[in-house]
């Protein structure tokens, strides 16, 4: 095979591969949904609504970033929403006991990191299955949140902070928190796709053994991913509290399902080893904008539940089916022409 034909063939192969790529598909679907929603749903395209949309997707988007890395390594962290809740509860409790907010916020981030480290310890040091561990800490952290704050709510957070979270960048209609999302998305995107750590994440997820043979330390990597996951969940708890100016133990309850749904919808394989951050961002955006548009069209919340569930299943089913089809095509091709 000459170099030229190889290149030509590789281009066509690349094109089909790209079309079949769920990651690209989900971005396309998201764009289409956004366009359709903007065109057909009244008030969807307004800048104010954009602000609301961003605020609504803020916690999911933040938590989805480290969750992507965790799932790519083949593990899962279901405790994120409870970490968020505990961070919020502790924030309220400290605020009530007259601690300065400038101390509280770093402490809440630290708390998130510690909670993540507990998950990491159970998963990597004790070698327990992450699903069971994080279901356990899901209950544990949420329970602790209630222990800390009870059923009560703490309000009156300083207006400087709450206003910043709900406000826009001066002179624009871009929400301030979009900055946080954008910065973290870029950081996580770069780490996953353009650093040695990212390469290791993919390798560990695809084959832990082979990664070990290439000098990667899977345990250490996973441990730190859990810490980061907890840290970001702690941050999400702080932002959640400031956004609603209300620290409650039940803040963010059930969010973990939405996050996992968004990540899988974004084309990340639950088996690990596959996925890309732009797809995940698209998945988050798709879920949030569908929710927003449906609500504006007076479609009930229930419809969204169904849509989320179906999308989640389809997002895993579709690539499987596509693979099966591609597999059979390849096998047929194999039989006719023997490469090499």
């Amino acid at each position, binding site marked *: 095979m000459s170099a030229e034909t190889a290149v030509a063939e590789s281009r066509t192969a690349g094109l089909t591969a790209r079309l079949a790529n769920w990651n690209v598909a989900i971005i396309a679907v998201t764009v289409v949904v956004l366009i359709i929603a903007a065109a057909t749903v009244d008030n969807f395209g307004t800048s104010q609504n954009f602000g609301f949309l961003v605020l609504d997707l803020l916690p999911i988007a933040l938590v989805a970033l480290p969750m992507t890395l965790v799932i790519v390594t083949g593990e899962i962290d279901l405790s994120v929403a409870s970490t968020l809740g505990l961070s919020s509860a502790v924030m309220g409790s400290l605020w009530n006991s007259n601690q300065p907010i400038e101390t509280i916020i770093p402490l809440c981030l630290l708390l998130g990191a510690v909670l993540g480290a507990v998950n990491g310890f159970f998963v990597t040091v004790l070698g327990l299955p992450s699903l069971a561990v994080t279901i356990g*800490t899901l209950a544990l952290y949420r329970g602790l949140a209630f222990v800390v704050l*009870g059923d009560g709510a703490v309000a009156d957070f300083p207006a400087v902070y709450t206003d910043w979270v709900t406000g826009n960048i001066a002179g624009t209609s871009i929400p301030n928190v979009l900055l946080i999302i954008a910065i973290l998305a870029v950081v996580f995107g770069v780490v996953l796709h353009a650093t040695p750590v990212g390469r290791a994440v993919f390798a560990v997820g695809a084959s832990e053994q082979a990664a070990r043979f290439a000098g990667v330390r899977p345990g250490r990597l996973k441990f730190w991913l859990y810490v980061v996951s907890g840290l970001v969940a702690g941050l999400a708890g702080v932002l959640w509290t400031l956004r609603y100016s209300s620290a409650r133990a039940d803040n963010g309850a059930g969010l973990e399902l939405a996050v996992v749904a968004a990540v899988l919808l974004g084309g990340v394989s639950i088996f690990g080893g596959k996925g890309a951050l732009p797809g995940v961002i698209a998945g988050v955006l798709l879920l949030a904008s569908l929710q927003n548009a449906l609500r504006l069209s007076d479609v009930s919340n229930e419809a969204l539940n169904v849509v989320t569930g179906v999308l989640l299943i389809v997002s895993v089913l579709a690539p499987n089916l596509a693979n099966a089809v591609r597999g059979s095509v390849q096998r047929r091709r194999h039989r006719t022409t023997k490469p090499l």
Partner: protein
Amino acid sequence: MTAAPARADSAVELPTAVTRRSSLDLVLRARELGIVLALAALVAVTAISNPRFLSGQSIRDILLGTAILAVLAVGQAVVVITRNIDLSVGSVLGLSAFTVGTLLRDNPGLPVVVALLIGAAVGGACGAVNGVLVRYGNVPALVVTLGTLYVVRGITYFWAGGQQINADELPAGFLDFGNATFLGIPYLVLIALLVLVITGVVLRNYRLGRELYAMGSSPQAARLAGISVGRRTIGAFGVSGALAGLAGVLFAARFGTIDAAAGTGYELNVVAAVVVGGVAVFGGSGSVWGAALGALLLTTIGSSLAVLEINQFWQQAIVGGLILLAIGADRLVAARVAASLKKRGSHVS
């Protein structure tokens, strides 16, 4: 893995085979024993601080509460034993409860048995969908049932549209069934026991049940052994769904008030009961007896906290702690057992 070197002590070991077997059984049963002991300690402490905890009414309340959770836990155990998980049980319970509630409201004459069957059928259908998606879609159970958790709940909300079925709309006979007793035991508890015994016996004493364990223990070996893994997977999900549906009917009978939110968040308790009960999340081991004991323990903890006037908020934290404790202990016990089994290889006689 390589063979251990030949052992010199083989001759000494052989005669003690019988005693060793029983001690081995003890180790394996320690799991369920542990729950029973924890339960006993809990009951003792609570009863000392408030003797009314052991009153007939109180025990009855705990058993009634356990009945629903235990039925769900039995179904979940079946699925987990095959190395899968079913997160949709809470939603399926809600759908079944609402379906049966609506039917009973519109046809007050419907016999309770028919209501139970309808509930189980609705649940079984949901479970079969899960199973088919897992088997033929090649989608992991976690994802499938997370999806159907949303979908089934959404369908129930759509259908219910905000209406609530109240106790006074349900036929008196059905509500009686939720509270009446037979020989002093509430019907709900009897049904749960029946489900437990039947499932327990099938899993332990029938080829079908053993094949489920085999699948969970080693899917690859199961395929090589000619077990039809696909059909069994769908079956296991069907059973879990059907039992969730049955639990929905029990729920309706016990609480009398049914809305679309019935059973929301139950999946966590159910998984917790199963894991605490010693069913390994990676399949192949554990028993429905353990799962039911786990359900009993969790329910008793809830009641004890109320009686001991410990902040209810601790309950969830305790459940979480118990899960971690249980899987941690399982890992430890497994390591111990493995070590002791390794020492006892076979010997040429």
